[in-house]
């Protein structure tokens, strides 16, 4: 009956509209009631304490983070815009590259005046290092450019001085760096050499007559490239260069060189050009530098590893050039940790926006005249977003573990830090891009608008998979390290003791032939399955490499040829290591609603790892069991659906740092809004 009535109404409307009679006689069409935006907070309940959850996943400095969010929120420099009655904070990406760089710098000055960087270089405590990480996580949520500008200054430039320099360098440079009296950059990469730092071409010689080093760019491919801060603002740089003493190349060393005076004029014998407009990160002034026999005082060699005496003798405490080189890469670790943990927060932004939108946007009715269905009530939409939510929670715990590992570093833990930070950096940044893409699509057309952030974040954060170590190369290093560990354990006939490989000492875990739901949700089973794949792949990788070697291939070549297994192994290591941190975080909780929901997230994370083709490819999972895993995933998704809002609210990202579609998108797009 209703249907017939509606049809009649539509027909009437058509007839009335097409009627050629004068408009005055046409009866006004009654406008349809506008779709009603209903805030998800009013209909969704929180089954657990979101503040407690936030404390758990942020892990540290929650109040500090909120203070910084507040500083940004209250400042005009951070470009507040009103939409749908709310204020949103986000850079104006429609500005020119030059304007964006200028704004990034203004924002840094504002934060510096407010004391945000106080003690960052002059206090040396674990607490300060953790505080720094928290601040970068917050700043990265606002904008990647500001985070990178600061990262170059505080992690790379300052890190080089801290790690490679000695006391007189610390005394001379750190305080002025903290106060921005000097602005540092870090010139390592060249046009011809990125990841392969050992082969850079810049060369430095020593002139004992004047007591100066002479830094030179011998060819076009030796120009320093992608140097953040170099194009516009930096006054000083760390220069990585081969050190040639009396015709002997001593390998890569780091020097301090001034590139601009206090007024911003480029120094003599320095040439600087811009890297130009980029697909993102245009608030960072990446530049290229040529050194035309630039002279710097002897003290400007960062000499913690090696020194040159006034009369020109090379002195080093580390005789092995390999080890000497490895020592030079230390500050990159801090940067890599920072990149990994920052990536997690972009996933949080994307998911918070996409899930909030999915809780307010409807599409299609199941029956005529029924209300349309909420996007997140479609199992398929749940299946798209909720596993990514589980992944993001897993990454949060892993990020907290990585930060602690880094700040509590000892000489003994340096190998673990290198392997774990490489693995997590690659995995998190890849995950982040995948998550942002899915979130963008889940927001439909609205996802295309810059103001809705997700699409823009993809461009801004894409670079993360390349800088501070290309992801593929980092993952190869992970596999290489695992192989070395295996070979060492075999040689000494000793048990595995590090990199989480202790499970290799135990008997092979057995996967039941018929997996039940309860088994699939058991953390012991999940751990067994992930260990099984890692172990199996490590065995295969070792066998593959030694097979090539048996045929007379070099170790390096054998490695190149076994790349497929290396890639699978790297992923298996990361998944297992991340999962382990999830289990450990869960174990700290008393039973209750918080633990219950985390248990579901942990199971979901484990099961999506088990969906990796490597399980089927190498027979770790039967075809039947793989199907069972897939079914269980949809079940957990539906169980997590009621917690979706609470889970993204627990991210603790203030509303102003999300976007209009995360809130009243009807009002934000109304005619009256368009008039302002």
């Amino acid at each position, binding site marked *: 009956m209703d249907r017939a009535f509606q049809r009649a109404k539509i027909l009437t409307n058509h007839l009335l509209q097409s009627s050629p009679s004068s408009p005055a006689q046409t009866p006004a069409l009654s406008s349809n009631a506008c779709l*009603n*935006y*209903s*805030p998800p*907070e*009013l*209909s969704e309940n929180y089954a657990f*304490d979101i503040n407690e959850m936030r404390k758990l996943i942020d892990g540290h400095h929650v*109040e*500090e983070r*909120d*203070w910084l*969010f*507040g*500083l940004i*929120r*209250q*400042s005009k420099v951070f470009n507040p815009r009103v939409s*749908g*009655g*709310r204020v949103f904070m986000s850079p104006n990406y429609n500005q020119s590259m030059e304007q964006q760089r200028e704004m990034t710098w203004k924002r840094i000055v504002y934060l510096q*005046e*407010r*004391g945000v960087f106080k003690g960052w270089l002059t206090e040396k405590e674990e607490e300060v290092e953790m505080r720094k990480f928290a601040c970068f996580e917050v700043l990265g949520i606002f904008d990647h450019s500001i985070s990178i500008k600061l990262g170059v200054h505080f992690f790379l430039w300052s890190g080089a001085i801290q790690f490679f320099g000695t006391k007189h360098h610390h005394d001379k440079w750190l305080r002025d760096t903290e106060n921005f009296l000097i602005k540092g950059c870090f010139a390592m990469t060249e046009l011809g050499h990125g990841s392969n730092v050992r082969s850079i071409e810049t060369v430095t010689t020593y002139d004992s007559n004047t007591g100066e080093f002479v830094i030179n760019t011998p060819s076009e491919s030796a120009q320093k490239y992608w140097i953040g801060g170099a194009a516009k603002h930096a006054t000083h740089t760390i220069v990585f260069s081969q050190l040639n003493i009396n015709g002997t190349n001593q390998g890569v060393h780091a020097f301090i060189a001034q590139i601009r005076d206090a007024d911003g004029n480029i120094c003599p014998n320095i040439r600087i050009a811009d890297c130009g407009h980029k697909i993102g990160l245009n608030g960072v002034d990446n530049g290229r530098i040529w050194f035309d026999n630039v002279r710097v005082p002897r003290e400007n060699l960062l000499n913690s590893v090696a020194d040159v005496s006034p009369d020109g003798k090379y002195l080093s405490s580390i005789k092995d050039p390999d080890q000497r080189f490895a020592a030079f890469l230390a500050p990159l670790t801090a940067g890599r940790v920072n990149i990994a943990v920052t990536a997690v927060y972009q996933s949080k932004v994307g998911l918070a926006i996409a899930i909030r939108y999915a809780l307010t946007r409807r599409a299609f009715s199941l029956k005529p005249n029924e209300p349309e269905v909420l996007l997140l009530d479609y199992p398929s939409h749940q299946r798209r977003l909720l596993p990514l939510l589980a992944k993001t929670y897993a990454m949060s715990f892993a990020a907290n573990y990585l930060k602690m590992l880094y700040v509590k570093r000892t000489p003994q833990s340096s190998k673990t830090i290198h392997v774990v930070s490489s693995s997590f950096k690659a995995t998190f940044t890849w995950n982040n891009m995948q998550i942002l893409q899915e979130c963008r699509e889940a927001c439909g057309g609205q996802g295309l608008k810059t103001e809705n952030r997700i699409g823009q974040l993809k461009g801004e954060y894409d670079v993360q998979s390349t800088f501070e170590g290309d992801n593929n190369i980092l993952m190869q290093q992970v596999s290489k390290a695992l192989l070395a560990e295996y070979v060492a354990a075999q040689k000494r006939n000793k048990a595995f003791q590090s990199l989480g490989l202790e499970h290799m000492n135990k008997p092979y875990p057995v996967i039941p032939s018929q997996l039940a739901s309860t088994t699939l949700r058991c953390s012991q089973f999940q751990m067994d399955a992930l260990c099984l794949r890692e172990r199996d792949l490590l065995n295969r990788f070792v066998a593959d490499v030694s097979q090539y070697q048996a045929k007379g291939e070099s170790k390096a070549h054998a490695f190149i040829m076994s790349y497929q297994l290396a890639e699978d192994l790297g992923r298996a290591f990361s998944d297992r290591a991340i999962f382990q941190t999830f289990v450990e975080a869960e174990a700290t909780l008393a039973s209750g609603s918080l633990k219950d929901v985390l248990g579901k997230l942990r199971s979901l994370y484990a099961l999506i790892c088990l969906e990796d083709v490597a399980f089927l490819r190498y027979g770790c999972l039967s075809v039947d069991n793989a199907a069972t895993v897939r079914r269980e995933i949809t079940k957990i998704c539906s169980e997590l659906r009621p917690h979706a809002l609470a889970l993204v609210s627990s991210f603790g990202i*203030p*509303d*102003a740092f999300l976007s209009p579609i995360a*809130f*009243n998108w*009807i*009002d934000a797009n*109304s005619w009256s809004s368009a008039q302002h």
Partner: protein
Amino acid sequence: MTNMSICLVDYEFPAFLLASQLNQVWHIWEDHLCFFISLQVLVEAHSSARILTLNRPKQLNALSFQMISRLLELFFAYEEDPNVKLVILKGKGRAFCAGGDVAAVVRDTRAGANFFLKEYTLNYLMATYIKPQVSILNGIVMGGGAGASLHGRFRVATENSVFAMPETALGLFPDVGASYFLSRLPGFFGEYVGLTGSRLDGAEMLACGLATHFVPSAKLPMLEAALYEVDSSDLVIISSIIDQYCEQPSLKEQSVYNRLDVIDRCFSQKTVEEILSTLEREVVHQMDGWISATIQTLKKASPTSLKISLRSIREGRLQGVGPCLVREYRIVCHVMRGELSKDFFEGCRAILLDKDRNPKWEPSKLELIADSTVDCYFSKVNIEEWEDLKLPTRSKFNLPPYVIAKL
């Protein structure tokens, strides 16, 4: 019934209200209780407008439990009543409302908590009200009075307006949703106003956004008469009517609002201690009476109150109005339980009862208060009869966009 209210303005208590005489008049009141209570909030109807007048002029319209209950009842009823399109709230006498009446609060912890529960529920209802509320702020607007007006859509200030959130001087903290509305003020003005209890006049209220309009008091009768005729809930229409009587007041030369740069520099600091040390540095740079006075005010306030207040405003900046009130209720429950500090009771004694104006705060110094103690104020009271604030459900209404934006 009571002779105390949260307000820092000295005023004459009517003799018959003094506690010693309370019993004598009690039985007379009892007979007329219902009548009396209804008289505390006067109700007038003019076509589709309802005019509610806070009517305890001798107590500067301090909100009693009964007044809050009555307002809640009326607001709930008007929301459902299609004949009501506009609610006007004003005060009788020289105050709009000088605060919440805290006599019952100090005497009985549980009843006190119940008072705040009702009051915050009213604040939430007003903040999320589907019909426009116009508050005529022709006089004192402090504490609970701010909570009963500033959450509404239209706030009309006059040359008689005096606004303040004086709680830190009393051992309390800016509540009634202040962590929401103060934190939305420009820059760090909210922190300044909330921590110092600084008084603002009508021009300043308009400049910072606490008031939406400024109308000279002489024009109020005309404004009210015009509003009686509105017969609409349309914000644009109501706003344009008020606009007709508006004037643009000028800020006094010495207005604190002209000191926003100093306020931003100092009150953006991370902790109360750093706010004070930054203010002290500013004083060294430029001898300035206003900065020294600000330092003195902060030093006289309860150190515990200052720390809780700063944290509450900072958290409020990142939350909707509902979570703000839930948090404030948790804090006020801890304050009432007095286990962490008894400063509120000491403040009431020193300012309202003994009037020696010399409270002995405990802990007496900012440095003596651990962060973990401050944390406790923000945690749930884990005792059965101390429930979290349950906000009235709003999902059944088609909330206007400006309300949705506050959630």
